[in-house]
């Protein structure tokens, strides 16, 4: 690629922004006794380094599961172990058993930040660069602009590098991205291997698993069930089984081990939701206390059914007509369905939806930018808790400016650009006057942005009334939920009406 120096500049800019966000640790002292995610990661390094594998997921005197017990799959544990070896080499005090609880120092902070940056640099950023280089039918300049916008996405930067957060979301998202790339470029085995690694890193990646499954199944069907398709199916199954076995090998020795790990990964004992999250259950519970009305097992069944119903059409379509473009859009709609209807969803899970949306940024820049802004806004209460007001506003504006100048998004709001042409045509068969869809969407965008800005200002400057201490968080999550529902409908429309679009165009031209 001839403009590689520009791409380098873009990557370096992304790294600079990440590092400056990570400098926001001015207040110094943490908040004992539980501290935060930072302490959790340090604790996992301590556990994995000092205890044998069999004790990692079990409650014992050395490993108190109440104090940040390990609740991610084995690959996270192995990664923590690797970091622990480096920590041991630099300063053993950081991971000494028991005595290093709540350890905080400048050097340690630098070490932890560095591990996140290195993981990002090795896994996530190359995937993004490769994805942008492989985009078809757009100029080099647009590819670089695309890379810039994706690397500047505020949500991932703030969660991974913010105040006391050391979440390695970039690793799991990066691995998933490698999976998407592999599968889209017909390197199915490598892609599925990468995705299995992603699932084994953070179990939330299961949100993406159905589209992968349907896409690969559709490919097998296309190649014919009796010939190459069957061979491919067997190979894929073999790859998945092999990668899972490799990761879980130490835990397959005893049945109790594997079960305990699963129990830590999927805490079904916890309720339908915790805290304020921008999904259906939390928003509905403002009016109707679902947690109290329905018994526990009914809650699980209801959420399972609703999730399945909302993602079924897109997945069936993908199985019958597999295409890389359809795959990406289905990833978005599936992940969004899971986020809105699933069990025990955390606010950070919106990142699982943001990643596929970043992938379709070049195709529908206007809606993607809008979605990514809303996704960052939905995490506002979490960000404010960590004193990240300035970085979040600054990175959001930088992202918005980058998208606005790279894609001229305000000019791309016609039906054609929004990929709604075939949908509108179908509707116009019944309602001839249905031409106002783009205008509605533009108005909705303006309303949405104004609401978000106002809510941000209110949350920051005013104190909530005494009787309703959570007023602003609830408002933020409800507004975000409404936005997300709209996007769910929109992306499903695109998926369902998509290939007709392509077919019509081919007929006309």
């Amino acid at each position, binding site marked *: 690629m001839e*403009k590689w*120096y*520009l791409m*380098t*500049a873009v990557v*370096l*800019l992304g*790294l*600079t*922004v990440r*590092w*400056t*966000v990570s*400098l*926001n640790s*001015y207040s110094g002292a943490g908040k004992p006794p539980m501290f935060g995610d930072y302490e959790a990661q340090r604790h996992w390094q301590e556990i994995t380094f000092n205890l044998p594998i069999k004790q990692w997921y079990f409650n014992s005197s050395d490993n108190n599961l109440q104090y940040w017990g390990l609740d991610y799959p084995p690959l996270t544990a192995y990664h923590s172990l690797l970091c622990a070896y480096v920590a041991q080499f630099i300063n053993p005090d950081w991971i000494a058993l028991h005595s290093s609880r709540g350890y905080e120092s*400048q*050097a340690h*902070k*630098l070490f932890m*930040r*560095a591990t996140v940056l290195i993981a990002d640099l090795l896994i996530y950023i190359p995937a993004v660069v490769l994805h942008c280089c492989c985009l078809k039918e757009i100029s080099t*300049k647009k590819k670089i602009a695309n890379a810039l916008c994706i690397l500047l996405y505020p949500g991932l930067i703030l969660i991974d590098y913010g105040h006391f957060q050391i979440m390695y979301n970039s690793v799991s998202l990066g691995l998933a991205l490698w999976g998407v790339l592999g599968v889209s470029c017909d390197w199915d085995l490598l892609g599925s291997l990468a995705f299995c690694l992603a699932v084994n890193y953070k179990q939330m990646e299961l949100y993406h698993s159905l589209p992968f499954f349907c896409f690969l199944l559709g490919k097998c069907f296309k190649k014919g069930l009796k010939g190459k398709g069957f061979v491919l199916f067997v190979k894929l199954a073999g790859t998945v089984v092999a990668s899972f076995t490799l990761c879980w090998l130490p835990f397959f020795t005893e049945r109790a081990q594997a079960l305990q790990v699963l129990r830590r990964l999927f805490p079904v004992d916890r309720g339908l939701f915790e805290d304020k999250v921008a999904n259906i259950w939390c928003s509905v519970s403002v009016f109707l206390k679902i947690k109290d009305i329905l018994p526990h097992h009914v809650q699980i069944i209801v959420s399972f059914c609703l999730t399945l119903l909302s993602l079924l059409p897109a997945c069936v379509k993908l199985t019958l007509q597999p295409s890389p473009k359809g795959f990406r859009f289905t990833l978005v709609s599936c992940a969004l369905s899971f986020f809105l209807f699933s069990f025990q969803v955390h606010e950070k899970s919106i990142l699982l939806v943001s990643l596929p949306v970043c992938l379709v940024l070049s195709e529908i820049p206007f809606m993607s930018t809008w979605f990514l802004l809303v996704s960052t806004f939905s995490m506002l209460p979490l960000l404010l808790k960590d004193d990240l*007001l*300035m*970085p979040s*506003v*600054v*990175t959001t*504006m*930088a992202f*918005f*400016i*980058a998208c*606005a*100048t790279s894609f*001229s*998004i*305000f000019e791309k709001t016609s039906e054609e650009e929004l990929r709604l042409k075939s949908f509108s045509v179908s509707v116009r068969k019944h309602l001839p006057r249905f031409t106002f869809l783009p205008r509605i969407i533009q108005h909705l965008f303006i309303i949405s942005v104004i609401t978000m*800005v106002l809510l941000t*200002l209110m949350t*920051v*400057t005013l104190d909530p009334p005494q009787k309703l201490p959570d007023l602003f968080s609830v408002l933020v999550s409800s507004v975000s939920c409404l936005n997300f529902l709209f996007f769910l409908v929109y992306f499903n429309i695109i998926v369902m009406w998509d290939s007709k679009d392509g077919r019509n165009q081919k007929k006309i031209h």
Partner: protein
Amino acid sequence: MRIKWVECAALSVMAALSVMTGGGSWFLALALGVTLLKCLLIPTYHSTDFEVHRNWLAITHSLPISQWYYEATSEWTLDYPPFFAWFEYALSHVAKYFDQEMLNVHNLNYSSSRTLLFQRFSVIFTDALFVYAVHECCKCVDGKKACKELTEKPKFILSVLLLWNFGLLIVDHIHFQYNGFLFGLMLLSIARLFQKRHMEGAFLFAVLLHFKHIYLYVAPAYGIYLLRSYCFTANKPDGSIRWNSFSFVRLISLGLTVFLVSALSLGPFLALNQLPQVFSRLFPFKRGLCHAYWAPNFWAVYNALDKVLSVIGLQLKLLDPKKIPKASMTSGLVQQFQHTVLPSVTPLVTLICTLIAILPSIFCLWFKPQGPRGFLRCLILCALSSFMFGWHVHEKAILLAILPMSLLSVGKAGDASIFLILSTTGHYSLFPLLFTAPGKKNLFLIGWKLSTSLAWALWKSSVNLYSLSPPGS
């Protein structure tokens, strides 16, 4: 809650501007982008210069003018010309809404979060003048070939090189100083000279001199250029001087401008009979040959050579250890000292060396004027010579050469190569400014890599541009 109001206000202004960039103006996008990066740099390490400026806010706010250059409660006394003192005075009127305590002269090393926010925002805000100056400079640069690619247009490259100059970002927004708007004034005066608005250029430079007298480094270039190309209104066909075209009117108007500006600045202190005190503060020759952290100039090499020779001399028993003075220049303290082996250097010697160094370029400017471009070259050479041979030079002074060089580098491929070397080494030499803070080293390295890659991009583009031009043109 007040902090949040201020943050919201500032950010809302920027949000409004960012909505305007939806229209696709790349210049505004670049300017806003770098401003946002500056906001992200607010919580980073800051040096003692932060306390210096807080102290000056306190002095100018709390004390009458007659005390400004006498006040010495803090070790960071006022040592910039009067216009800068007035600037701090104006800032202090805004500062009192942030935190009244910072304006107390006795609150040494006071750095509450509001103080930090105010100071950082004041630097970011005054950089607006720098942005305007860059905009004016871009008008003076025109591409010879019509470039369709935005990233190959000289205007774009120049804007990136100036607005995103990492040396300036590090010195102003991490280390903490107010160089942004000062360089804005300088670039604006250069732009005015390019646009043949000589009087404005001269006025702006005179004002700049009274803001920060370090710009005396480049005053000879201005003086000779204005005398030769403005006061002599025409040249003979072969380019040499036409003595009868001298215009007294122009000379007098220039002199009057400079005189009026100086009167405005130094007048009050002349009336108070404080001029000697002011000058002793402005030109502290008691400070040593080299600043605490050495500027990479000739005297640094000289000192190192002296040290090496003295070590060799001691080993070979040529020198008597008892005769070697205690204060050695490598200990990083600002003191006066004597050299041991090589002859000692006095301020007069450095002045003579500087003058000899700038003589060739001055001669060229007088005898073979090449218009504004020749002036710019002479300016850069004056800055570099003064940096090389000056007395008590700060390493930040390299920016005086790098920023104008950016203007030249978008013109010719040869200049671009030189600029690449100059900017890379210059920015690298700013490294010691950040050495106290561990995490910031990485930030600097990243930033330096970024600036290097940008400069490289520029060089590549210019090479492309000029390789396309037919031979002989």
